[in-house]
C-alpha cells in the first residue's frame, strides 16, 4: 500500500530519479515527499543520520539510503517483474562495475563541469568525454546496457540525460559524438517509467543556469 512506501525526494536530483524510475518500472505505488535540500527536514535527518542526503526510501518505516542500493533493494523485494540485475554472477558483476563507473565518473564530472570555470571546467569536460567514449563502446549494438532489457546500468545512467542541454552548451555534441548513447537515451525516454520520472530538460537547464549564476555571483 502507498502508505507503506515513502520516498524522500528532490525533483532535480538524478539520484532520486533513479529510484522514481525503478519504482515505476515495477509498477509500485508510493508517496513522494519533496525535500528542500538546503534545509533538511527532521524526517530526513532521522532516517539518514549518517549521510543526510536524499533519496531515502522508507519501506514499512525502515529507511534505505543511497540510490543504487535502493534500486537493488527494490529489485530484490519486488521480484515479480522487470528484473534490473541478471541472474548470472558474472553478468551481475559486470552490471555493478558499470553502474559504479557511471556513479564515480559521470555524475561527479558533470557536476564539476557545472560548478567550475576555465581550466578546471575544461579538464572535467575532457574527462567526461572520454567516459562517454567508453560507455559508447560498452553499449555497442545492444538496445540497452542490460542487453535486451532495461536494467541496472541503464537506470544508473539515464538521469544524466536531463543535463543534455547543459552538456551541449559546454560543447559536448551528444548526437554527433555519441550516436549510440544518444539513440539509447531516446529509447529510454520512450519508456513511461523514465518519461514520468525525469524532468523536462529545458526546465532543468533553466534551473541549472540560474543556480550557476547565483553560485558564481557569490565569488
Amino acid at each position, binding site marked *: 500500500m502507498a502508505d507503506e512506501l515513502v520516498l524522500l525526494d528532490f525533483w532535480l536530483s538524478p539520484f532520486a530519479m533513479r529510484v522514481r524510475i525503478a519504482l515505476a518500472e515495477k509498477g509500485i505505488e508510493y508517496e513522494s515527499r519533496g525535500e528542500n535540500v538546503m534545509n533538511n527536514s527532521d524526517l530526513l535527518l532521522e532516517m539518514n543520520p*549518517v*549521510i543526510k542526503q536524499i533519496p531515502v526510501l522508507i*519501506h514499512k518505516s*525502515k529507511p*534505505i*539510503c*543511497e540510490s543504487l*542500493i*535502493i534500486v*537493488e*533493494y527494490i529489485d*530484490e*523485494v519486488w521480484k515479480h517483474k522487470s528484473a534490473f540485475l541478471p541472474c548470472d*554472477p*558474472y553478468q*551481475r*558483476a559486470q552490471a*555493478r*562495475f558499470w553502474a*559504479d*563507473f557511471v556513479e564515480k565518473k559521470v555524475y561527479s564530472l558533470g557536476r564539476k563541469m557545472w560548478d567550475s570555470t576555465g581550466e578546471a571546467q575544461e579538464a572535467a569536460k575532457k574527462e567526461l568525454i572520454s567516459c562517454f567514449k*567508453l560507455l559508447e563502446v560498452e553499449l555497442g549494438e545492444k538496445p540497452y546496457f542490460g542487453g535486451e532489457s532495461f536494467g541496472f546500468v541503464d537506470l544508473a545512467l539515464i538521469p544524466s540525460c536531463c543535463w543534455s542541454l547543459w552538456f551541449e552548451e559546454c560543447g559536448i555534441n551528444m548526437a554527433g559524438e555519441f550516436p549510440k548513447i544518444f539513440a539509447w537515451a531516446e529509447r529510454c525516454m520512450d519508456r513511461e517509467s523514465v518519461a514520468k520520472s525525469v524532468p523536462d530538460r529545458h526546465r532543468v537547464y533553466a534551473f541549472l543556469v540560474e543556480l550557476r549564476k547565483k553560485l558564481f555571483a557569490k565569488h
Partner: protein
Amino acid sequence: MANQTILLDYWPSMFGMRARVALREKGVDFEYREEDLTNKSPLLLQSNPIHKKIPVLIHNGKPVCESLNVIQYVDEAWSDKTPFFPADPYGRAHARFWADYVDKKFSDAQFKIWGKKGEEQEAGKKEFIEAIKNLESELGDKPYFGGDSFGYVDISLITFYSWFGAYEKFGNFSIEAETPKLIAWCKRCMEKESVSKSLPDSEKIVAYAAEFRKNNL
C-alpha cells in the same frame, strides 16, 4: 583447480586484501599474483582496461574488478558456502550501505592521515575519528557487523586494520582510546584464519607508509 582462479593484487592494498579474505572465507583455491604497480602486467591492463587497478579476480578467464564487486561476486559464485549477506533484502541493503560508507568516508579519511601532512592530515584525522565512531555505533554489541556471522561489511572494513599502526604513528593518536569496541571487533576478526592469512604485518605497512611519506611529502 587453482589455475582457474587468479587474483592480481598488491601486498599492502587493503582493497586487494578484501579479495583475499573473501576467497579464503569460501575456501577457494586461488593463485595470488603480485603486481608491480610501476610496471603493470599485460594481463592486468587487459583485464581492467578502464581503471588499470588491482584487485582483479580472474575466474575461468573472466575478470571481475573493484574490490566490493569482487566480494559480492565471490559470494554469488560460491553460494554453497557461508553467505556474506543476510537473506532479507533490508539486511542486504543495510550491509551495502555500510560497505559503501567504508569505501567513501572511511577510506578517503584514512588516506589523508598517512598520505598527507599539515592541515590536510589534521582534517583527515577528524574525518577518520568521526567515521570510526559511526562504525563503532553501527557495530553496537554485535560480534560482527553481519550479526552473529562474519560478513560483507566485516570483510570490507577489517583489511584496514593492517594499516591502523600506520594511522596511529603518523596521526599521533590511539584508535583504541577512541573506539575500544571496534578494536575488540578487529581482534575477533583476526582470530579467523581467512583474515590473519590475508593481512600483512602491521610493521611492514608502517615501513611502507614511511617510505611513501619520504618520497612524496
